[in-house]
């Protein structure tokens, strides 16, 4: 089968690999119909996630048709068209039982700090991912959901990660009616988080980024205020200035390890890789939120220590909340929102690229070429 193949930082290509097999009684094999590239993949692409091995196939946001099921699979049937949440979750461990499906204890032997994630290095379980024609789906009865009748597959594929992550970012913000919410990052996750902030009753939503076309998109899609941090002398002062010197009620970090805006953070976190990424957006979030405010982090960072003004977290009485999204927990509500027309995820998809052109797709998304917001890879069988 065709599969994306990681060769090193900034080097990916399409190759032939054997079709995956059932390795566990609760596995399914899925023929991929759509597979996105995510901001999270850029951390792998840039070589900043430890234990990212050459030869691995990335891809944690995909839909597909069930081709084969193991003897322990009871609910999923061959032929079902499913959306597959990015978390690999057993459904029975103590964390899964609490609804922490992103923190499963039975899906990632290599690290206890995160559950298994498709195509996300060995630090997240060593699974080959969905940027391929076929993929192995463990615990197939737990997370995968049959795509509801009539749902556009483009909406479905964004329900595997972007929408739940953005929704959870707003949810973890504990947004109260009328709150001012600042979202750092106008990638797919940040734009959708700004959109979701309204659902929780925000009174004002502000997005910060440095890419004009993304800011424009956020303004009309969320809809919200959106500012280029390069034109603000200091984003923290700007936010204080626009909130009567108090700070925002809630700040959301939807940027993560690849943040721009601070030379020191960039050198330490993205060039030398001696910290778990560049924490510029998180730094701004902590310093822009009001005392007693909430900083909600969905931006992804590496596992080692990272420079953040933790003293200000203490002194301001800030609550930090963060997690990998618990996709399965949020799916029922979000499917409802899509079906009722409250959320329109597919509008984020700007590029539909053949799987064979995966090298170009990564470059377009990572270098923000051609006004790209969200690219989706189409395997040959899904194009005919």
């Amino acid at each position, binding site marked *: 089968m065709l599969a994306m193949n990681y*060769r*090193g930082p900034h*080097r*990916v*290509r399409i190759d032939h690999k054997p079709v995956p097999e059932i*390795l*566990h009684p*609760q596995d399914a094999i899925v023929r991929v119909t759509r597979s996105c590239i995510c901001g999270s993949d850029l951390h792998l692409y840039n*070589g900043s996630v*430890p*234990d*990212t*091995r*050459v*030869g691995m*196939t990335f891809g944690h946001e995909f839909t597909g048709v069930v081709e084969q099921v193991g003897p*322990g699979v009871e609910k999923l049937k061959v032929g079902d068209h499913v959306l597959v949440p990015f978390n*690999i979750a*057993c459904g*029975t*461990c103590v964390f899964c*039982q609490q609804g922490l499906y992103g923190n499963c*204890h*039975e*899906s*990632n*032997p*290599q*690290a*206890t700090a995160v559950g*298994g994630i498709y195509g996300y290095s*060995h*630090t997240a*379980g*060593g699974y*080959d991912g969905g940027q391929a024609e076929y993929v192995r789906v463990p615990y197939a009865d737990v997370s995968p959901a049959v795509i509801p009748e009539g749902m556009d597959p483009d909406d479905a594929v964004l329900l595997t990660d972007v929408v739940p992550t953005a929704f959870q970012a707003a949810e973890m913000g*504990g947004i*109260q009616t009328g709150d001012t919410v600042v979202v750092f990052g106008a990638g797919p996750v940040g734009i959708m988080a700004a959109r979701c902030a*309204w*659902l*929780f*009753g925000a009174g*004002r939503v502000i997005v910060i980024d440095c890419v004009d076309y993304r800011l424009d998109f956020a*303004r009309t899609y969320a809809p*919200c*205020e959106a500012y280029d941090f390069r034109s603000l002398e200091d984003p923290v002062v700007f936010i204080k200035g626009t909130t009567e010197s108090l700070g925002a009620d809630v700040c959301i970090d939807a940027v993560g390890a690849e943040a721009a805006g601070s030379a020191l953070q960039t050198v330490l976190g993205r060039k030398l*890789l001696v910290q778990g990424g560049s924490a510029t957006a998180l730094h701004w979030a902590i310093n822009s939120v009001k005392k*007693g405010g909430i900083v909600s982090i969905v931006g992804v960072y590496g*596992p080692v220590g990272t420079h953040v003004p933790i003293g200000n977290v203490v002194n301001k009485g800030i*609550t930090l909340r963060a997690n990998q999204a618990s996709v399965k927990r949020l799916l029922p509500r979000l499917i409802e929102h899509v079906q009722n*027309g*409250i959320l329109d995820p597919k509008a984020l998809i700007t590029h539909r690229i053949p799987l064979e052109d995966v*090298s*170009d*797709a*990564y*470059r*377009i998304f990572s*270098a923000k*070429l051609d006004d790209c917001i969200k690219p989706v890879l189409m395997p040959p069988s899904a194009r005919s």
Partner: protein
Amino acid sequence: MEHTPKDPSQVLGWGVDADPKNDPTYPMKHRTDGEHAGYSWGRPPRQPPTVEVLHSIERSDLTSAFGTSTPPSGASGALRRFAFQYSESSYGHWLPLMLADRVGVAEGVLNDLKNGRVPNVLAERGWKAEWKHDRTGLVRRILVRGILFSAAVAYFRGKSTDSR
């Protein structure tokens, strides 16, 4: 400012998920203290290991399911095995893994060559897309790198003539 909807309640779906009780400044977990009865669960069936899978020393064994992509091999594999002697809390774990990743890239190139394949690095880096969508940026980068490279060559040439 002009982009703020004047009346947020006009935004489609405004407030449908408002939850006045979700205020994490205060304790929010609905405690049942069930955890205190002990953390145990009926573990799912165990996946038989078919390749070498390393596991964190912060747990006693493999998880019930795991990935089998790209098992450790060669010099990078040796580094990874070394790294897994240390906990996730230790630089002794992460720094050797980062080093192993870099060594793995070189091994990847050697493997390609061994299989009679010269990796097309330009294509892998997606320069076709850059040529199409950001030609000036690409040309500028190549020029800057070219100039830096020639300057470095000229400098070191100069040095070696000096020392003669």
